[in-house]
């Protein structure tokens, strides 16, 4: 499937804007936007003493940034590895898998697991389980023969539905209290981010980023497709498996913090690719991350402070993302 690979533009700096190459210009603008939205998030509508407001909003801001970063990086890397621009981890049911694993923990270990065990430890266990299960699933889906992309997407979506139904099933088997606790944590909401896991989540994200950085030189090559990558001397199997593991850890982080959001990754990755104009990861990855932070922090600020809709952002993202997805799929089919 060479279609995603063909966009390696030979000279990304051809179109210069104000003395900068286009990607650099885009990054600069996005950086500025990110800064503006962060400042607005922290300052707008703040009443009361700063010594309360700053740590309170700061924790929320950090959580949102972690989510945005995880979603953006995991989506771009996932698209690189699977060599397409339509699939994303959440479309493939990754976050539903995380929800299922969390539910299963409570189901099999009792509600004590939810309240008794240290949440950080529980999160660690869940991440390990997530890596193992998604590893198995994606080994089976991606490392076999080359498969039809549409079938993969559909299978992923149906897996997502299966995971969701199974978790609902288990949730119904729990006693009503545990059910309530779980139910609340799985409704995607950016207004009520879970901040108990901030510390471990930041640690995990930093760790993942370090590993990803060591692999950074392979990203552009992997984007050329399996056979080219192997030809150019990449240990394909090993690299892909490691990257998919990193992706599942990042998905676990974002789902644990805000709950499942299907289309956010697709939205930012698609936008980042089209804004940057080429597929070099040294531009696309930061662009996607900055875009994601701008969308989440800025969007949340606008909705919360200006329109007073606090939980609507996830709904709006699903709406826009769904439209982008249909357009992408249809454009691909029309070709």
């Amino acid at each position, binding site marked *: 499937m060479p279609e995603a690979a063909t966009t390696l533009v030979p000279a990304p700096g051809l179109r210069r804007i104000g003395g900068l190459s286009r990607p650099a210009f885009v990054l600069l603008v996005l950086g500025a936007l990110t800064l503006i939205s962060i400042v607005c998030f922290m300052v707008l509508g703040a009443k009361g003493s700063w010594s309360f407001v700053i740590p309170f909003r700061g924790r929320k801001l950090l959580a949102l940034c972690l989510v945005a970063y995880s979603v953006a990086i995991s989506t771009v890397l996932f698209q690189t590895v699977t060599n397409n621009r339509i699939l994303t981890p959440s479309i493939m049911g990754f976050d539903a898998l995380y929800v299922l694993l969390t539910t299963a923990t409570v189901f099999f270990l009792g509600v004590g697991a939810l309240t008794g065990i240290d949440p950080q430890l529980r999160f660690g266990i869940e991440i390990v389980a997530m890596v193992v299960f998604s590893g198995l699933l994606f080994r089976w889906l991606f490392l076999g023969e080359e*498969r*039809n992309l*549409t*079938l993969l*997407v*559909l*299978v992923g*979506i*149906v*897996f997502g*539905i*299966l995971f*969701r*139904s*199974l978790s*609902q*099933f288990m949730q*119904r*088997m729990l006693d009503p209290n545990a059910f309530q606790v779980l139910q609340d944590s799985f409704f995607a909401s950016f207004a009520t981010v879970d901040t108990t896991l901030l510390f471990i989540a930041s640690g995990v994200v930093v760790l993942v980023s370090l590993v990803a950085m060591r692999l950074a030189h392979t990203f552009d090559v992997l984007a050329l497709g399996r056979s080219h990558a192997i030809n150019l001397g990449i240990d394909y199997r090993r690299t892909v498996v490691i990257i998919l593991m990193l992706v599942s850890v990042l998905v676990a982080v974002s789902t644990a913090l805000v709950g499942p959001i*299907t289309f956010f990754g697709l939205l930012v990755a698609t936008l980042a690719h089209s804004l940057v104009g080429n597929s070099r990861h040294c531009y696309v990855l930061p662009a996607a991350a900055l875009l994601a932070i701008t969308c989440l922090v800025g969007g949340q600020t606008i909705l919360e402070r200006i329109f007073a*809709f606090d*939980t*609507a952002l996830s*709904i*709006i993202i*699903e*709406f826009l993302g*769904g*439209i982008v*997805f*249909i357009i992408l*799929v*249809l454009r691909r*089919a*029309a070709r």
Partner: protein
Amino acid sequence: MRMLSLAIAVTIALAIVSLFIGVSNISLLGLLSASPEERPMQVLLISRIPRTLAIILSGSAMAVAGLVMQMIVRNRFVEPSTAGTTESASLGFLVATLVVPGWPLMGKMLIAAGFALAGTALFLRILRAVPLRDVMLVPLVGIMLGGIVGAVASFIAYRFELLPSLLAWNMGDFSGILRGRYELLWIGFGCAVLAYIAADRFTVAGMGRDFTTNLGLNYQRVMVLGLVIVSLVSATVLVTAGSIPFLGLIIPNLVSLMVGDNMRRTVPWVVVMGAGFVLACDVLGRIIRFPYEIPISVVVGVIGSAVFLYLLLRTRRHA
């Protein structure tokens, strides 16, 4: 024919089992000895029989709706929940609840059916806009369209603080069915009968537009009839029980594996298997965590998505 009678017998047995499961204990002996005014008889008449009827009616109607849809779209993987129909119906019901709260359920159901019709027509319009070489693309676009319509519905529901009701409609559940609350389903069942009467037309339409026209049938009219049937069924089931995912997908596919694609022959099978499947799932949902219940949409969702996955991956091996 013998196989079909066997299937009917199993379904009837399941229906009888369904009548006697519940918190309030009813035994045959108790029923016979008690007078009609006493408790067991009342429970049976007001709660159990309506519930069982509702399950049979909605199960068979949804399965037939799926079959009709697969015929007119000419794709094995569509059904109301993979074509945006269910979500459009629930958007319509939401709008009806907000705009005309005083209307009887029948009126709201018709509005929901109108939205379902529009949503499905939009789906068909999108499909016509692109040449689809890929069978899998059709349900994919449908599921996504459903997601978009669903997001619009949740936004409206969020604004007017109706999110819990929306969640309740999307979660199919027969536990709230009582006498007087399920009769709309007869309309859905009537649609299934209509589909049986028009079965040959749908079979022909399933062969394609040119073929249909060649045989002297008005293709457009068959399509519209099919769309109306599907929308009415989805809307009636949605407003009485809530949505039941994948039912219309797996039953017709299983039947087609067993008896082929002539709709005149498959409709009775689809009706019986649809009713039997939902009965079995409902009985399962009621006994697995007795005395609590697991909603039907959860049970069907688990089984249905697993069967759907099997169907998808099976096609690949054959293709």
